[in-house]
């Protein structure tokens, strides 16, 4: 039986005046479950909210962790730059690492595991070799997974640094090349812009950053981090819209140009419903599609006490939808047959404590 969720209520713009200490504690527990405690901590105005003292300490602790994380990401980017600078090719930063490098509001308290970078397809092999020289190695993969990555996916297998343990995902495109929806991600990459004050890093245009975050949310089935992804979209949208009043129109226009019109509409419907993202009504009329409603259910609080009924079913339907969207029929069948022949293995948590 689901209790009402303090996290979802707060994200939707509700007040915390009615929170008793137990509701605050549940809010923190939910936020931890969603990987959002540090971001929540960073966005609470502590002097105003009257937090119980023990939770103040949790806030302090998670802010310390988030600050350390940002420090580590920036340092890691310097290592990556050192490794790749000699190639003389533009290197595009994506998602979390881009938010941190650009110091966007989205970076505040955002904890993520990998650094995502894109280089042109013809430079991919060189970039991989340079990263290997810099100490990043590809873990052992079986031949099938190697082939899956190299032929059908848009990245080389994740590379982990042998000493620091940090992981880089090296891509040559934004979205799966075999995706059923025709997306001109090449255009987004070609029209990327240099990061201010850097002669090495590149970033997507503002509109494309939102579009990329949206396609990540709508094409993936990583619901564990889904709420964070929607919050990212919301923060990006608010930030860019506050800098330029015409941003919302340009965003929708750009989405049409690159083939993500429907994706951005559904993602923003979701963000508006869950986080109150201020999308002008004329740009986004009407109701969400069925799939979007499923996503809404999957990315809602996943905490045992507050998750919605039927979340597992939404998860399942969305996983099948993701597979369908990602791979054409003959690859889909091959892929499913291969995975089935290995036996179904769920996610594996750590063994040692």
């Amino acid at each position: 039986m689901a209790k009402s969720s303090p996290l979802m209520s707060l994200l939707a713009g509700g007040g915390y005046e009615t929170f008793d200490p137990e509701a605050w504690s549940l809010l923190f527990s939910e936020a931890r479950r969603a990987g959002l405690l540090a971001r929540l901590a960073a966005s609470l105005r502590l002097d105003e909210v009257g937090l119980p003292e023990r939770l103040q300490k949790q806030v302090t602790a998670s802010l310390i962790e988030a600050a350390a994380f940002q420090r580590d990401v920036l340092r890691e980017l310097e290592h990556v730059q050192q490794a790749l600078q000699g190639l003389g090719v533009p290197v595009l930063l994506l998602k979390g690492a881009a938010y941190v490098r650009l110091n966007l509001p989205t970076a505040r308290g955002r904890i993520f595991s990998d650094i995502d970078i894109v280089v042109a397809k013809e430079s991919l092999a060189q970039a991989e070799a340079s990263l290997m020289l810099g100490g990043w190695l590809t873990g052992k993969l079986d031949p099938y997974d190697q082939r899956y990555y190299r032929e059908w996916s848009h990245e080389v297998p994740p590379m982990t640094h042998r000493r620091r343990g940090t992981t880089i995902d090296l891509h040559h495109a934004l979205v799966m090349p075999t995706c059923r929806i025709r997306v001109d991600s090449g255009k987004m990459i070609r029209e990327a812009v240099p990061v201010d004050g850097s002669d090495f890093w590149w970033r997507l245009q503002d509109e494309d950053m939102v579009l990329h975050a949206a396609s990540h949310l709508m094409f993936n089935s990583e619901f564990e981090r889904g709420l964070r992804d929607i919050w990212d979209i919301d923060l990006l949208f608010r930030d860019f819209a506050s800098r330029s009043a015409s941003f919302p129109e340009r965003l929708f226009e750009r989405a049409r140009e690159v083939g993500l019109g429907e994706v951005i509409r559904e993602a923003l419907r979701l963000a508006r419903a869950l986080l109150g993202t201020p999308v002008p009504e004329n740009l986004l009329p009407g109701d969400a599609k069925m799939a979007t409603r499923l996503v809404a259910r999957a990315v809602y609080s996943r905490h045992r006490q507050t998750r919605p009924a039927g979340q597992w079913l939404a998860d399942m339907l969305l996983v099948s939808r993701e597979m369908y969207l990602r791979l054409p029929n003959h690859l889909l069948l091959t892929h499913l047959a291969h995975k089935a022949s290995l036996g179904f293995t769920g996610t594996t948590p750590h063994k040692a404590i």
Partner: protein
Amino acid sequence: MLTLSSCTSEQLHRSLRDGSFRLYLGQLALKVSSDIPEFIAAFRQLYGDHPVTLGGGEYDFDIAISAPALWRRWLRRNASFEFSGDTPFLPMEVGHAHALFEWGLNWAIASFLHHCLIIHSAVVEWQGKGVLLSAVSGSGKSTLSAELSEQGWRLLSDELALLDSDLKLIPLARPVSLKNSSIDIIRQRHPTAVIGPLARDTHKGTVAHLKVSADAVGRNLVPAVPKLIVFPKWVENAPLRVEPVGAGQAALRLIDQAFNYSILGAEGFRRLVALVRTTEAWQIEYSSLDEARDALETLVAEHG
């Protein structure tokens, strides 16, 4: 305040089931939930003197020891450690559930309480003076802290030293985890000691837990001032050796044992330097627990 042992079995089971149970571990409040009888029995035995409430309220950590999801159930009965509704570890058999709780709690403390510098070290206190016993696993740190706690020393923690921004050691008195032969050693030396059920064949061998004294639990809200850092090492048949350790060396050895030193960054360095400047560091090698205790009491008296 209500203690765990003064709750009726019925109250306890209901409260652990409906989410209203809180365990107070010094400054920490834990929401604990469980419907696994083996865990509840061991929990009741080992945490009997700890303060609890049964009416809900605020908490730091949300922990459940529960039956795993359907697709993770096998022929034997398993228990999962849930943290904020998430299961960061593989389930273990129900007979190990109380050990899983202790390990999971250590993990949670070391992963989240970054307002403290967290060092892999036992913390004890003698005559009002805090002592860190820092050692790599297998050096007999837990056995030594169990022995000291049975001999009237105050135990603050057998695993984790929490050093706050005022350089105070935050107490976390809770069951001491004993491994393999140390279980019998403590049992023979202290026949009245309360030792919980054995968890056999865990990844750390056989594990059992020593209940700490009501006095140590009663002082769980009173921080200790660190006065000595000791690096103990048990070596079979070795004669007692007590040697001073330089402050720089002590700092490096503590960094090596710190869980969140890199997360605290410059502040971690500052805190550690302040710690080794306000304490003395020694290493002792011993084969006899009596000699080790004598040596520690002398060190506290003369150098603490």
